[in-house]
């Protein structure tokens, strides 16, 4: 079953830059997909359209049965609750501890304390940071901070996890650590993962589905693919 379906999607920014052109795509539930491409290939724009930070100029996007294009601004939060998002720069709140950072996601959607506590601890266990719940972000390594961000993204048990270059700031060793965590989440809970990256090594090692973008167009879509050499 397809979790994500894009039909004829184009995106042109107001400054005239065309980021995505005529993209047709469907991604199955439970899959792990890399989106690769050079700078300006439209990776980030694609991810942003999936969580409705950007609207396509043309075409249709359906995520988990929700028509993202027609979604009103005031209803976007309903979509966001169904997915988790991880960025290159972690986006943690520096004044909150690890626990509080993850709990923040539960708190703002109005979860009860008990429910939140159980879920937060479970998420931190999945990313292997249960022993650091009282630390602050600046006391953690980059890899650990990214794991906190992943815990925050999965705490509400989303169907879909979107990652925009999550290993971009990390050295190869830490990057592999993150990939293990993500692979684990994908296998254990069946969460669909879409990850934009330009890390050749990771893509080749993981042997997952690979979408290759160039100048906003889809040039390759492979099961168990490797890094496309044309980039």
């Amino acid at each position: 079953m397809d979790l994500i379906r894009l039909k004829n999607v184009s995106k042109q920014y107001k400054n005239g830059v065309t980021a995505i052109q005529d993209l047709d795509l469907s991604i199955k539930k439970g899959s792990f997909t890399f989106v690769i491409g050079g700078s300006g290939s439209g990776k980030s724009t694609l991810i942003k359209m999936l969580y409705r930070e950007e609207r396509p100029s043309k075409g249709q996007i359906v995520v988990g049965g929700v028509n993202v294009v027609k979604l009103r601004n005031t209803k976007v939060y309903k979509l966001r609750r169904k997915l988790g998002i991880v960025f290159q720069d972690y986006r943690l709140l520096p004044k909150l501890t690890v626990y509080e950072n993850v709990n923040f996601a539960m708190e703002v959607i109005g979860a009860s304390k008990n429910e939140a506590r159980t879920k937060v601890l479970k998420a931190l266990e999945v990313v292997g940071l249960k022993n650091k719940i009282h630390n602050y972000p600046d006391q953690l390594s980059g890899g650990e901070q990214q794991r906190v961000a992943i815990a925050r993204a999965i705490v509400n048990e989303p169907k879909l996890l979107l990652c925009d270059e999550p290993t971009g700031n990390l050295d190869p060793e830490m990057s592999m650590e993150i990939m293990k965590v993500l692979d684990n989440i994908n296998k254990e809970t069946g969460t669909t993962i879409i990850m934009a990256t330009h890390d050749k090594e990771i893509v080749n090692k993981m042997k997952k589905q690979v979408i290759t973008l160039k100048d906003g167009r889809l040039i390759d879509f492979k099961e168990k693919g490797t890094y496309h050499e044309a980039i």
Partner: protein
Amino acid sequence: MKLFRMLGRSFRDAFKSVFRNFSLSLASISCITITLIIVAIAIIASFNVKNFTKELEKDMTIVVFLDTKATEQEVTSVKKKIESLENVEKYTFKSKNDVKKEMVKESDVFKTVMDGWDDENSPLKDTFQVKVKDIMKIGTTARKIEKMDKVSVVRYGENMVDKMVVAFASIEKVAYGVVIALILVTVFLIVNTIKLTIFSRKREISIMRLVGASNFTIKTPFIIEGMVLGAIGAIIPILITTFGYLAFYNHFEGYLFSPVIILIKPEPFIYSASLAILIIGIIVGMIGSAHAVRRYLKV
């Protein structure tokens, strides 16, 4: 349950934020305070003016003096004409004799002088005492009566009344102008305070949006922050209203300058005035913050 949790969170965030940006909060609070003090004075003054105008109106009468030579028939015709006037609420007729009797009662000197007068050579005049419905139109009504046949003089304390009405009307206008100007400045300051809060919490807001916080959850703390600023700003004006008015009332023993100007009794007046000030403070705060949220918080 969920709603209460969210509101609890909003209140906590709002209070935190007030103290986090304390210098700017203080600017807004001081401005609200000054505004509300003036609003309070305006409220107290205008209610007192209304009160004593009403008191004054109760005593306000047009006294119509008829010609000494007016016959009984002519008196009846004047009476009918007065009756037909729109602004007349009620009237009483006092004949020369009634007036004489009243005056005689008042002092022995009058008695000796007046005892010599009879109906024919009495310098006294028959009078009508007319009460009007609308005090603002008393002048027009008086002039209409003055034009009637056999009416010699009409008196209604025109100078004092006219001057007072004009003076209070202009004081009221100036007060409203000042209050509106101050409220605008206050709203502007609150907009800026909330704007700063929004900017200082940009990161937090962006994360809230990412993890699926509803617009209501994101906006409410800022709106409440504005209301909290308004409420805090109302504290000093309320104290001033309560204790200031009490002291004022006691000092003048309930009258201002002359027994004509009666002050409103402090209780329960100060309580309702305080409540009004608090509500105005909160509403002004809310308007400011709602404006800032609409302008600077793109969600």
